[in-house]
């Protein structure tokens, strides 16, 4: 054990000497899943921006949704002798071997936005958001906003059985627990899409007396909320005033809706997972400070009062 520590110390020393020679820049390999959603595109953009800001030399590898490509990318990063590796794992299992290889080469690995089923000592830390907490923040906002008045809530769930759908539902229900004035009267899946969000909201409006019985809609993502807003408008009601709209993700389009007064609040799933990851790596490599095994990103609440148009302009260029 002592020998291992000594070896690790020596390698870190060697690495720091080596990196000092090469203009003191840290080289980080980043294995991204692919570009299956706008959010992920924004995460890639922000990771590159954060690396540039800190003078980090980022080696980017797109895995096109395949684990074998990610493992290949990780092995090539190890062979190139990078200082650290960021990986957004496409699946939860099958990482032990390649992570052991990285550990043997003394390259710290940070997981971004998803966790894996592997022994904790194989990676440095995981930077993710807390899905339950996101639902909780949305629920708290609604509880505070209606302030004791009776309120029937309809819920647009994500894809049935997916972890964001389960956790965002759980967190929201926790926030509403014990508040008898708030009641979830209808809950259906909108598959995280605008089309289904609109279709399901149309049926909710019909089923609840043309929408007169509904005081708020909670959508597990912004896209479904955008669909619901259109359905509410077509039913002759005013979204944002007649029916409150709260959702999660904070994609640019919801800020446009907020600026128009049609959406009320959104909870951000930040695409900036790389910032905290780089901070942790910096502290670990420079000072040897072990970060906690889980770094939770902030689930920030945005409302109409937060200058939505400004946020929209900031987010627009990120590739959402």
């Amino acid at each position, binding site marked *: 054990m002592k020998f291992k520590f000594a070896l690790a110390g020596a390698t870190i020393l060697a690495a720091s000497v080596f990196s000092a020679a090469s203009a003191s820049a840290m080289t980080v390999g980043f294995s991204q899943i692919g*570009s*299956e*959603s*706008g959010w992920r*595109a924004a995460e890639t953009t922000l990771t590159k921006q954060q690396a540039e800001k800190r003078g980090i030399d980022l080696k980017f590898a797109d895995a096109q949704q395949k684990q074998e490509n990610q493992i290949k990318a990780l092995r090539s990063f190890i062979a190139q002798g990078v200082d650290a590796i960021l990986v957004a794992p496409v699946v939860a299992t099958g990482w032990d071997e390649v992570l052991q290889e990285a550990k043997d080469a003394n390259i710290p690995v940070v997981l971004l936005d998803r966790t894996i089923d592997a022994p904790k000592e194989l990676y440095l830390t995981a930077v993710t958001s807390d899905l339950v907490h996101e639902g909780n923040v949305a629920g708290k906002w609604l509880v505070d906003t209606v302030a004791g008045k009776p309120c029937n809530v309809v819920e647009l*769930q994500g894809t*049935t*059985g997916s972890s964001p759908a389960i956790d965002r539902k759980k967190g929201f229900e926790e926030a509403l627990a014990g508040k008898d004035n708030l009641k979830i009267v*209808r*809950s*259906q*899946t909108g*598959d995280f*899409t*605008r*089309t289904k969000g*609109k*279709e*399901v909201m*149309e*049926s*909710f409006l*019909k*089923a609840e007396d043309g929408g007169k019985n509904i005081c708020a809609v909670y959508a597990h993502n912004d*896209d479904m909320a*955008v*669909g619901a807003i*259109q359905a509410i408008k*077509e*039913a*002759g009601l005013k979204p944002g005033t007649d029916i409150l709209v709260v959702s999660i993700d904070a994609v640019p*389009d919801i800020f446009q809706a907020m600026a128009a007064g049609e959406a009320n609040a959104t909870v951000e799933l930040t695409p900036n997972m790389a910032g905290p990851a780089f901070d942790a790596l910096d502290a670990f490599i420079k000072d040897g400070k072990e970060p906690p095994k889980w770094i939770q990103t902030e689930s920030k609440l945005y409302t109409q009062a937060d200058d939505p148009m400004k946020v929209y302009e900031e987010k627009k260029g990120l*590739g*959402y």
Partner: protein
Amino acid sequence: MTGTLKAYAVRLFPQVAALAIILFMVSLAFPGFFKLSFQNDRLYGSLIDILNRGAPVALLAIGMTVVIATKGIDLSVGAVMAICGAVAAASITAGHSLAFTLAVTISTGILCGLWNGVLVAVLDIQPIIATLVLMVAGRGIAQLITEGAILTFNHPGLIFIGSGSLFGLPMPVIIWLGFGLIVALLVRRTALGMLIEAVGVNRRASRLSGVSTGVLLIAAYMLSGLCAALAGIIAAADIRGADANNAGLWLELDAILAVVVGGTSLLGGRFSIAASLLGAMIIQSINTGILLSGFPPEFNLIIKAAIIVLILVIQSPRAQSAFIWLSRARATEPTKGQEAK
């Protein structure tokens, strides 16, 4: 004339009956189901929602019926929807006129159909494989056009196609009813329908008897592409944005299901566009019914599957012959009784 009408009634009876039963069941679960009102210059109510939300599958089913009648299948329609939605959104946001956008989008759909048709008719690739190519690649093409994001637009003309109304009905309803009528008349008032059925029953025999099977096959797939383009425009206009990841996702399966529920055999030959459209409405009635009934979402697919299985069992040849046997037995019973006296 009354003869053909009677033949129609017999042909469409199982679908009409199934639709009526489903609508009745939904109205039991949700009392306000048949309520219609006039709002925002159009009829408003759950029945209109079914007609409106069923528009993409109904349009796809028109093309799919003709393709299936030729003993083919078109798996690419969902992906073509995504491509066409993306093309429409990209063109309108680039500042082109509505007419130009629609022309380009519809041409894109027809071109996709041409590609499928050439693979099937000229290269003689099996339809399920030939169209699988575009099903897989198409969504990628759509994502290339939208650059992975949802491409939104605010052009009132294009939005009108998705959520405007004409003669008191939503535009998508007008489009699929109108287009279905045109295609049905085209195939039934000319010899076209019979020729398509001939190709489906026996391609070689049709060719030997002078039917230009190649042209007909390619035309069938082009019609399917055109239908997918219309459905794609409606889907994008409805949400004011082209969602390359999700537009038309799995709708090819719903379209095939609509054709099958409509009683057209996957082995080709006899087909009915009206029955397929009824099939599409049956599927949408189930979807809307589930949403209105307030069941937890975990049950959606189970309920849908159970109802579909029931409809298919009732339509199956074995069940049909059992019905005929039962009705004959009942018809002969009283006479037997009289003889005994």
